[in-house]
């Protein structure tokens, strides 16, 4: 019955389509989804040929029609073949909402346009596709009273009585019935059921099994939590997916539906709605279900304005699985680069400026060009030895999987500017009937979204530079006393073997206190020669060369130097720091080659140019208009130096160690504008921080680094990247200068529409990073991605990516703290989240009664929580007393460069309970994360808190002393601040170290230092853990529930 189904009904049903269309046109929400479907009838009736079926747009359309917006299950790819067999049809059809996304790839380009034109012509005829479901639901209607189980779920789903619907429903009754009956009487019942729009209970079951699995449990729980106990004031009609179709939920729902105890006024509204629908008028489930499933919602505010609104805290969405990358981006175009390289805040690009202006979450991208690939997925390297790299003549786009070959393979059309380019004869290959090149499978650049080209000499302004590491080391008394010098020397020494670049690597050192010490490391010497320059006003370099030497040649001298360095300055009592002049000296030495400059700074620069005042963290400045100046670099010297460093391809990494104020805000600018990074170890003590410094310095020195790089993001016509955020310097409007890049750096960019209306179906993005690899090759790493242009705001929300949005938001907020108060930056975040949710609400407010409920798209369910976490993150948290200024600045510089995943982990850290695991033998499951609130902490438990930068191990008061003893040894009763966790000879200790190592390995970019905290051990507990529990009310900040209520109120205002 399968195959003929889609065909048969078509003829008779077509007429029915029109009445519908007109009625439906009043519901704005359908506009996008059904639009796709609408194409179907237009085409189908004529030739029901196979080719028609294959074309993606038709597949789902006729089957599903209005449910289109409703379903968002993963299998978008399948919709193409889906049209025939009915069981998959239930799968495939839902995807029709996505179908557009399949248009973009060029093969289908030829087929797609016609439907679309018809589309734009009459966008509102959308629902004609509905007829098929229409009759289906009609059929069921008579049954509804009988199958009392079936309908409630439906009504729950639809929830809100829709005044618009009933009359159309009637009409539907009359019109489609006759038409559908002749078409396929026997299949009538079962077939519609497969679509899941059907309220019939019996039919539902198979259907739900096939469709729902992923969603089912979640919604089930939700409902239980929300409705089960009638006295609970919180109801949680989470209208996600297919929940209501499952028998258990429908049961529950029913329970709730008839439960006579509705303390929540709003839900009573819903009930009435249910009943209303049950009794016959029952609007066909299809449209409403479609609507309802579009969003998730949260009930709150039984009494408008009261704080103890019925908000069930346990029901709030939490990202306990960490960052879940939206599947849609990679799935909709298998040729797109992986989302670890490029993530868009929404993969649906708005087609007009007016639509873009309603999207308050910034259209943009977060790019991590060198993200580490898991083994087996390395970026392929392509060498166009003789051909030269194939690029578009006009827009300089690199050849990529989305270019189309025409003219029998002699020309190719650029996907970004659509210019026809000639194919060089060496690159020529014939094109087969379907437009594919015959040599496609040997051309990774035409298959993969990410490739690396080997660049010929045209891409070099000078011979590729060798990897170069230069160390600028503070050797004043504090550096020696804290043990920094020793740890650092040891670490560098141990890394000498693994520095990238093998025999080409160059290395050099300068140390400084009140004078500047240069070291001659000539390979013929046995010991390094030290030269002291004490004239700080007129710095000169005492030796023209030999300050910077080839590591492999001078290896023994370098080793001798590093061995003797700590002892050389052991007795140094100098407290001054001539940082500025030393910086200049380093610049002079390095400017020939460029490279990486690592600065180890222990105190406030106090001599020579660039000396900094102890402007300190003045409490009186907070809350005034001058507050932001504290976070700005004080002396323009540093900005100027940073600009010069970038010009000469020098990247600066700042390691700061002081226990006192060091003005990280100023020192950090060096890293910010040179593509570097700030590492801050407040109050560095070798005994405590040794491992952390060692690991992070090792990582910094040995990770794969791209040198003297520039990056540009190209995008299609009509859109333009307007601003960039991260650690880099712009060399021209869209060219990022990156003296050194590595896998731990990400860059964000904001996009704007240049034209009022985009005419293309797809917008392409291409990230190109031109760099010198450590092996001395000039390379271009190219990531290409396609994103569909959408006409509907709901679609944009559906394709949104919370991770990218938050990453962009955090950068914007941090930048805002540099020009206004912290308070304003936090409000900015809050307003944007609220605006976005309000706009979303406005989309649905007309059809649904939404009072007392907050609705949000499934894709953004964590947005409010991450927004809250962002407001509580170090750079934005509280005021003067909450975070030290240096820590704030350091965190801000770090967050400006963090890739999405690490950022989300930092914002919403992992909290796991381990005591049970320690006592037993079962496998440890890191997935069992807990909500970040005090309630998660059981006094009998042992918890690990991991934000990617540190571990906090929390010992409950009533934790068995056995565990404590096993973990920290005999002195478990002492002050935990003096105890460090180390491996002991017992299984428990081994186990916990194993867990910690496992966590560390999962993200090696930073080292998590362990802090042990005992419950009630203030202020330590508060400092390390309690302030980081983002869901709790800390200081003046909101807790999660309050925050939701607050957002809800803001959403309500002028809604």
């Amino acid at each position: 019955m399968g195959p003929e189904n889609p065909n048969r009904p078509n003829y008779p049903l077509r007429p029915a389509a029109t009445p519908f269309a007109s009625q439906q046109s009043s519901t704005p929400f359908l506009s996008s989804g059904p639009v796709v479907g609408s194409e179907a009838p237009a085409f189908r009736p004529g030739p029901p040929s196979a080719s028609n079926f294959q074309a993606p747009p038709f597949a789902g359309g006729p089957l599903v029609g209005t449910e289109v917006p409703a379903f968002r299950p993963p299998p978008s790819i399948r919709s193409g073949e889906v049209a025939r067999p009915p069981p998959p049809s239930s799968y495939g059809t839902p995807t029709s909402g996505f179908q557009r996304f399949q248009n973009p790839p060029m093969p289908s380009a030829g087929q797609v346009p016609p439907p679309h034109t018809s589309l734009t012509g009459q966008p509102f005829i959308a629902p004609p596709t509905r007829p098929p479901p229409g009759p289906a639901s009609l059929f069921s209607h008579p049954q509804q009273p009988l199958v009392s189980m079936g309908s409630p779920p439906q009504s729950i789903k639809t929830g809100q009585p829709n005044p618009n619907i009933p009359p159309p429903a009637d009409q539907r009754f009359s019109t489609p019935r006759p038409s559908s009956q002749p078409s396929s009487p026997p299949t009538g019942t079962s077939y519609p059921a497969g679509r899941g729009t059907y309220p019939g209970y019996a039919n539902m079951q198979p259907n739900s099994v096939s469709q729902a699995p992923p969603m089912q449990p979640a919604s089930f729980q939700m409902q239980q939590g929300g409705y089960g106990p009638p006295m609970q004031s919180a109801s949680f009609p989470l209208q996600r997916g297919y929940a209501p179709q499952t028998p258990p939920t429908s049961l529950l729902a029913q329970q709730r539906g008839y439960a006579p105890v509705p303390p929540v006024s709003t839900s009573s509204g819903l009930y009435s709605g249910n009943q209303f629908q049950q009794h016959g008028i029952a609007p066909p489930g299809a449209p409403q279900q479609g609507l309802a499933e579009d969003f998730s919602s949260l009930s709150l505010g039984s009494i408008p304005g009261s704080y103890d609104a019925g908000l069930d805290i346990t029901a709030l969405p939490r990202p306990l699985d960490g960052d879940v990358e939206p599947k849609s981006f990679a799935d909709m175009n298998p040729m797109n680069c992986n989302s670890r390289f490029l993530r868009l805040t929404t993969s649906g690009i708005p087609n007009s400026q007016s639509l873009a202006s309603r999207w308050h979450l910034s259209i943009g991208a977060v790019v991590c060009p060198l993200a580490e690939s898991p083994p087996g997925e390395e970026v392929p390297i392509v060498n166009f030895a003789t051909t030269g790299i194939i690029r578009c003549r006009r827009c300089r786009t690199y050849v990529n999987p989305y270019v189309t070959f025409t003219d029998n393979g002699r020309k190719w059309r650029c996907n970004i500017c659509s210019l026809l380019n000639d194919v060089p004869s060496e690159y020529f290959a014939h094109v087969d009937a379907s437009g594919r090149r015959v040599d496609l499978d040997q051309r990774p650049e035409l298959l993969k979204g990410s490739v690396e080209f080997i660049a010929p000499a045209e891409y070099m302004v000078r011979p590729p530079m060798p990897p170069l590491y230069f160390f600028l080391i503070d050797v004043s008394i504090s550096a020696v006393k804290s043990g920094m010098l020793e740890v650092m020397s040891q670490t560098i020494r141990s890394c000498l073997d693994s520095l990238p670049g093998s025999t080409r690597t160059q290395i050099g050192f300068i140390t400084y206190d009140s004078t500047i010490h240069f070291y001659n490391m000539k390979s013929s010497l046995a010991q390094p020669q030290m030269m002291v320059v004490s004239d700080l006003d007129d710095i000169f370099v005492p030796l023209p060369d030999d300050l910077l030497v080839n590591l492999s040649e001078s290896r023994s001298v370098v080793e001798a130097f590093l061995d003797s360095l700590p002892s050389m300055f052991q007795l140094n009592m100098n407290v001054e720091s001539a940082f500025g002049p030393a910086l200049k000296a380093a610049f002079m030495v390095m400017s020939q080659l460029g490279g990486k400059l690592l600065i180890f700074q222990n105190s406030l620069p106090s001599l020579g140019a660039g000396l900094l005042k102890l402007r300190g963290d003045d409490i009186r400045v907070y809350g005034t208009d001058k507050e932001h100046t504290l976070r700005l670099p004080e002396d323009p010297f540093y900005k100027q130096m940073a600009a010069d460093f970038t010009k000469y391809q020098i990247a600066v990494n700042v390691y700061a160690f002081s226990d006192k104020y060091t003005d990280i805000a100023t020192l950090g600018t060096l890293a910010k504008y040179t593509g570097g990074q700030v590492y801050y170890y407040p109050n560095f003590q070798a005994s405590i921080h040794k491992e952390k410094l060692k690991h992070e310095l090792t990582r910094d020195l040995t990770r794969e680094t791209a040198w003297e790089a520039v990056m540009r993001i190209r995008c299609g016509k009509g859109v333009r990247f307007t601003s960039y955020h991260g650690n880099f310097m712009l060399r021209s409007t869209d060219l990022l200068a990156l003296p050194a890049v590595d896998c731990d750096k990400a860059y964000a960019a904001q996009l704007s529409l240049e034209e009022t209306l985009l005419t293309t179906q797809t917008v392409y993005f291409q990230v190109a990073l031109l760099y010198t690899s450590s092996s001395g090759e000039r390379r271009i790493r190219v990531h290409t991605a396609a994103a569909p242009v959408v006409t509907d705001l709901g679609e944009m929300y559906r394709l949104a990516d919370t991770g990218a949005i938050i990453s962009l938001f955090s950068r914007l907020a941090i930048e805002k703290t540099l020009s206004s108060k912290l308070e304003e930056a936090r409000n900015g975040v809050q307003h944007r989240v609220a605006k976005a949710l309000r706009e979303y609400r406005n989309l649905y407010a007309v059809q649904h009664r939404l009072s007392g409920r907050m609705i949000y798209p499934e894709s953004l369910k964590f947005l409010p929580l991450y927004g809250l976490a962002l407001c509580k993150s170090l750079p934005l948290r509280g005021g003067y007393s909450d975070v030290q200024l240096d820590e704030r600045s350091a965190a801000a510089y770090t967050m400006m460069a963090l890739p999405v995943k690490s950022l989300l982990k930092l914002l919403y850290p992992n909290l796991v309970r381990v005591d049970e695991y320690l006592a037993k033998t079962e496998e440890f499951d890191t997935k069992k994360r807990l909500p970040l609130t005090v309630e998660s902490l059981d006094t009998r438990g042992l918890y690990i808190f991991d934000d990617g930068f540190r571990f906090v191990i929390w010992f409950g008061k009533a934790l068995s002393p056995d565990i404590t003893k096993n973990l920290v040894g005999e002195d478990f009763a002492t002050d935990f601040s003096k105890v460090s966790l180390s491996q002991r000879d017992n299984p428990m200790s081994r186990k916990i170290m194993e867990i910690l190592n496992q966590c560390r390995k999962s993200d090696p970019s930073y080292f998590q230092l362990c802090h042990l905290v005992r419950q009630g051990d203030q202020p330590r507990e508060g400092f390390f853990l309690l302030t980081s529990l983002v869901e709790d009310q800390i200081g003046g900040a909101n807790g999660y529930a309050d925050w939701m209520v607050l957002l809800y109120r803001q959403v309500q205002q002028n809604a």
Partner: protein
Amino acid sequence: MDWLPFLWLIFSCMNLTLLGLNFYEFLGFSDLEADYLNPYELSSRINYVIVPEYLLHGALCILFLMTGHWIMFLLSLPTAYYNLKQYLSNKHLVDVTEVFKVVSTEKKARLIKLGFYVIFFGLVITRLALSVVSAVFADDEDIVAWSTIY
């Protein structure tokens, strides 16, 4: 009465220089936008002329005041105030690292200033012409009477 034309000549020269400087700065910013100029070069060029420009405008302003041209002085005051504010808040110099964030506002500011100087130049030229005329035809009562209206 002979010095008046010379005074106006000096005024118009100063004005012309200011006009030129502003145009030069404006050009620099548009070149930067069009990628004909890199930020390093732009900042060094503009930072080189910005303080002389401010000083020149200040001088013009004071000269108007000293010579008792009240209306002209008042007209030139807003720009002087703007310059002073920029200078005092240390925003007058181009920050090479962040220049792309301010390029559009800077361009707009330059354009407004350019317009201001063009209008001002018109006024100054008119006064120059009038003063020349009045100096040459000092005897002619009519013209003298007419020029005093200004």
